[in-house]
């Protein structure tokens, strides 16, 4: 589904190389985790894939279902089935959560040539998904992420994911700032969305999120590259030993 080949990326403003030949493939239905120390380029990877300004791809490619992602605008990538769950979801005062999400859902449907959802259909769908995620209906009426706790913001991200039904979900440090209960709720939400034609790339510092979202493959990232890949046991090894030995071993 997601194929990244020899990706080189630098910061536009600083002329600083962040990704230095990263290759990765996530087949349909799988959950891959990307772990790595601070500064290894994990967040850059998620931003470059979803199309944030400020990064320049100098070499390599990234495709989703064979379509060149890097040539698309962010909204085109979303319509193509890509979703980024933000580490820090943005607060947007004065814009209702519901209005925003319905606009997003219908913009994507329109881009895909699917009939737009009526208000009634949308309301019914979002109420059902919100209740599964234990999101208060009152929260839907509030402005986007305004006054939400850390856990609520992350659950709101999962709600958006559930409504947008992406093919490929990238989760950028979704566990940051969450207590154990909140993390479990978020993980349950993600697990409920797992399916044979949906894939996940879970970016995280810590192994603990992976206790709740079982990955098929774990990649260790360092200095802009994947240096080692393996099964879930790799995450446990990081948790016990830290990155030091692994990185030394990978050279």
């Amino acid at each position: 589904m997601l194929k990244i080949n020899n990706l080189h990326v630098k910061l536009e403003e600083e002329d600083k190389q962040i990704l230095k030949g990263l290759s990765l493939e996530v087949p349909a239905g799988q959950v891959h985790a990307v772990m790595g120390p601070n500064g290894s380029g994990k967040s850059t990877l998620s931003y470059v894939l979803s199309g944030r300004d400020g990064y320049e791809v100098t070499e390599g490619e990234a495709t989703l279902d064979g379509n060149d992602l890097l040539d698309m605008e962010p909204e085109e990538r979303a319509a193509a089935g890509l979703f980024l769950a933000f580490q820090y979801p943005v607060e947007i005062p004065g814009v209702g959560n519901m209005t925003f999400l319905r606009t997003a859902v219908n913009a994507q449907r329109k881009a895909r040539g699917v009939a737009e959802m009526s208000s009634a259909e949308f309301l019914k769908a979002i109420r059902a998904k919100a209740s599964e995620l234990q999101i208060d209906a009152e929260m839907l009426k509030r402005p986007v992420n305004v006054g939400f706790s850390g856990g609520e913001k992350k659950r709101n991200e999962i709600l958006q994911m559930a409504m947008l039904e992406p093919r490929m979900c990238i989760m950028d440090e979704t566990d940051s700032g969450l207590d154990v209960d909140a993390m479990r709720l978020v993980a349950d939400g993600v697990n409920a969305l797992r399916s044979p034609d949906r894939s996940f790339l879970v970016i995280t510092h810590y192994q603990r999120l992976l206790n709740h979202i079982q990955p098929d493959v774990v990649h260790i990232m360092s200095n802009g590259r994947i240096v080692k890949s393996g099964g879930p046991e790799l995450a446990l090894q990081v948790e016990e030993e830290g990155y030091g030995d692994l990185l030394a071993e990978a050279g």
Partner: protein
Amino acid sequence: MSDTAVQTKEVTPQVSGAPVAADALQTRLDAMRLPAGGFTAAARADALRRLRDMGLPGPRDEYWRFTNPRDFNAPAPAPISVPEKMQDSPLFQDLDRLKLIFVDGEFDAAASDSLAHEGIEIEMLAQADEVADHWAKGIYGSLEAAGQKPVNRPFAALNTVASRDGMLIRVTGKPSKPVHIVHRRASEDADVTWHHVIRAEEGAELTLLETGMVGARSNGMIEADLARGAKLNYIGARQAVHQKLELSHIFARVESEAQLKAFVLSVNGTLMRHETIVDIVGDDALAHVAGAVLGDGNDGPFHHDDTIFITHGGLRCESRQVYKKVLKNGAEGVFQGKILVKPGAQKTDGYQISQALLLDEHSQFLAKPELEIYADDVVCSHGSTTGAIDETALFYLRSRGVPKERAIVFLVLSFLADALEEIEDEDLRGQISDRLEAWLTRHENQ
């Protein structure tokens, strides 16, 4: 509050330049049909005397440095074509309200609802002014005169001199529906002046809405006198005729426990100056004034000026000034706002924010925030910012599939939200918000 202004310029007060020559004023006056006045005769004569003393403003006058008064000084405005089929703004149309129509500034009784309504007495200045005495006698021109210190406001004095019509509203209770003034245009070169007087008696409450198209040039005024515990909500939203030249004034006197809330929406207009002067004379009173402005220079030159002066003279009073301007394609915005806290006005809570969202590098915002405080136990803050669209928020919306132009509409509405929050009534606020959204959608991709 931090001041992250990029293009905001603050200027220090400067001695006024020489007033525009007296013959320019005479030419301006000669072009108008001045009413003699009945009960207003003395106020008009006084205003004329004051106007002759101060003269018309020049571009070097301290409070006219950011807004060139030339087109307001000219004897007549350039004509603006009147569309064959005039339509009222859709704003507030489906509301249960008392609808009063003014055509080129004159009341159109046939097109309006009956003036009789419980809790409110409405008369028209043009008729009432035929008699020598009236309850409005003590107010007409007197709040305006009081608001001339320490800053000269020549066009306000001109308004008092020249207004032929307007409403005299005495609120004695809590009328069950709002009063809605709808302006319509009839002639291409209408140079319209109107003057409303509002007296809200003790504990009375009124919501006043004002919409529609005014003339090629207009000079409107509301003098509002709020007795103890009275409440006035005002929402103004003039319809878009881009070439219009518009001056508007609100002079309010707020007694103890009274509340004034005023919100003005401005979309389009070549040259607009809105002056709001509030004198809080009692204790525990409140005055919130707010404005949202959308200007697109692609429709023609756009210049919008909000000039605010709030005086605190009582104990424990609260004032807020919340002004937001969205400017693109060379549009210009100005904010001059002052909070004056008089000696003894302790426990004053004064707040002022003026912000501009510049959607390109050609637009500009000039702000002159001022605080003058003569009491030692007060909380007053002011801030002014000029900024661009927040790239992180824009990316967040787009990453969910919202197209860029639509995402910008969302972020503009988000920027304006604080100003709209000052509209208390949720339904009215929603209608204003819808109108903003419609304008923004029409101006996408420009």
